């Protein structure tokens, strides 16, 4: 075993979530601070001990403002991870790297969003003159992330025989999990296949229920070394393995120029992750897979080796992603039905599964897999 590994040397010892909802009072900064405060209190760690920070490159709250507000000590490590929804697991992984290498002792990871208002949508602020990769998409009316995904989804369905009902089964499975979760925005709303198939289109072949929620809320984690974790009151969730991934030729969402458009960023992350992990795909008993849009779940199942290429829809059809299946997914409801905190609430659900405190707890869990968004520079972790 390489002495360079971060394996099990760092743990998530504190977790904080605000309420998830629409139109929450308080600024993004306040939501971030409340989530971080909860995470520190849970871990029994004083704010002045925090010396490292890691977040998404889309985070609107600033490191120095947080440090000032919260009373952190001198911050000597901070990192921001691209790219949007691909970065969640990367923040945890880089925090683990910083602690394992001695660059920091206590690292806070956070994501705060107030996105429930329509005016807050990023696509609604598209510039009149677009540059970079957007220049090849937006002038042709591909405006929203869902538009970037729609042709990928249609071609996948065409090539591999996946159907709208298969996508619907993903939405229904996660909704049923959310119905058991009092924190979930959709706890009180059931979803039937009839409702799914009858929902309004957003970007065909994707309908309303193929798309994640928009949410106000924040999630935060506190990470420390495995030695320090022994002194914390919580059950540690050790960062067992971590990888990021960019596949040559891939892009941000619109991956049409890959020779193989379905060998996406997850393949790069998966190769590295499973090389370093004692826990292999067949050993994973519960997984949280990034689900901004239902088709991403199929691609990530294949990319991370839980299914062979083109077989994920059949895996879903057989009920394997449900509570009694081979690989229960998104047990708190995921981005589709719990909340959309850019995948950070998927990480908290993985922590709960390791702690044994999920509202859809899987029996005998000894590890939990989480991945961030397929189709963009991405990341994944295995917790145990």
């Amino acid at each position: 075993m390489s002495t360079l590994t971060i394996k099990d040397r760092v743990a998530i010892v504190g977790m904080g979530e605000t309420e998830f909802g629409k139109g929450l009072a308080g600024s993004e900064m306040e939501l971030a601070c409340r989530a971080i405060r909860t995470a520190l209190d849970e871990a029994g760690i004083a704010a002045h001990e925090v010396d490292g920070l890691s977040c998404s490159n889309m985070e609107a709250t600033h490191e120095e403002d947080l440090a000032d507000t919260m009373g952190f000590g001198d911050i000597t490590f901070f990192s921001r991870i691209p790219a949007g929804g691909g970065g969640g697991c990367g923040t945890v992984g880089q925090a683990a790297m910083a602690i394992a290498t001695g660059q920091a002792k206590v690292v806070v990871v956070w994501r705060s969003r107030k996105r429930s208002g329509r005016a807050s949508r990023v696509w609604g602020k598209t510039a009149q003159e677009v540059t970079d990769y957007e220049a090849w998409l937006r002038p042709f009316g591909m405006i929203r992330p869902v538009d970037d995904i729609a042709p990928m989804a249609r071609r996948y369905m065409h090539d591999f025989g996946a159907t709208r009902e298969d996508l619907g089964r993903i939405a229904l499975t996660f909704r049923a999990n959310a119905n058991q979760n009092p924190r979930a925005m959709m706890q009180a709303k059931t979803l039937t296949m009839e409702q799914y198939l009858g929902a309004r289109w957003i970007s065909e072949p994707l309908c309303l229920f193929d798309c994640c929620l928009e949410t106000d809320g924040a999630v935060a984690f506190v990470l420390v070394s495995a030695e320090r974790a022994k002194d914390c009151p919580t059950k540690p969730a050790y960062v067992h393995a971590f990888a990021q991934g960019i596949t040559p030729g891939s892009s941000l969402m619109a991956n049409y120029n890959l020779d193989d458009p379905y060998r996406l960023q997850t393949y790069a992350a998966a190769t590295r992750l499973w090389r370093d992990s004692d826990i292999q795909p067949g050993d994973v008993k519960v997984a949280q897979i990034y689900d901004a849009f239902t088709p991403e779940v199929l691609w990530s199942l294949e990319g991370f080796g839980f299914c062979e290429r083109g077989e994920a829809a059949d895996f879903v059809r057989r009920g394997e992603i449900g509570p009694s299946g081979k690989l229960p997914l998104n047990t708190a409801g995921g981005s589709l039905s719990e909340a959309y905190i850019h995948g950070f609430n998927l990480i908290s659900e993985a922590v709960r599964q390791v702690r044994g405190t999920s509202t859809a707890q899987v029996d005998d869990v000894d590890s939990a897999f989480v991945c961030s968004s397929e189709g963009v520079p991405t990341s994944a972790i295995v917790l145990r």
Partner: protein
Amino acid sequence: MENKDIVIPATDDPDTAGFWAAARERRLVVQRCGDCGKMRFPPRPACTCGSFAMGWHEVSGRGRVWSYGVAHAPTLPAFADLVPYVFAVIELADAPHLRMVGNLATSAKAAINSVPQDAVAIGDEVTVAFRPVTDEVTLPVWIPATQSEVVQ
């Protein structure tokens, strides 16, 4: 800009300006490496072979629909009156591994919702046409072969 209700590409980026200059001349181009000959899109300042000798190569303008989506509300004001409309990913006949996003239309001047989605399928043959939008910007638009009689 006179009409604020549009979305246009920047045409002054040194890496991509050649594409838009050619489009203004009603030519569809992709980059071709002067050393290894590999064609690429979207444009980059260098080839994966290490060469910076990137030139512009005119392609036939024929292609096939690799896939497509159909946008519905909500979207930007520039497109709100056009929903539902098809946006397609076109694989180029000269280089099938290169794919461009574009709209389908019955003619260069027809609206982007002029080809109904019922008339579109993966694999459909299309031919490029060009639509001037501003003095600087001319957008490629793709005319389905099934629409060619309409165009006449």
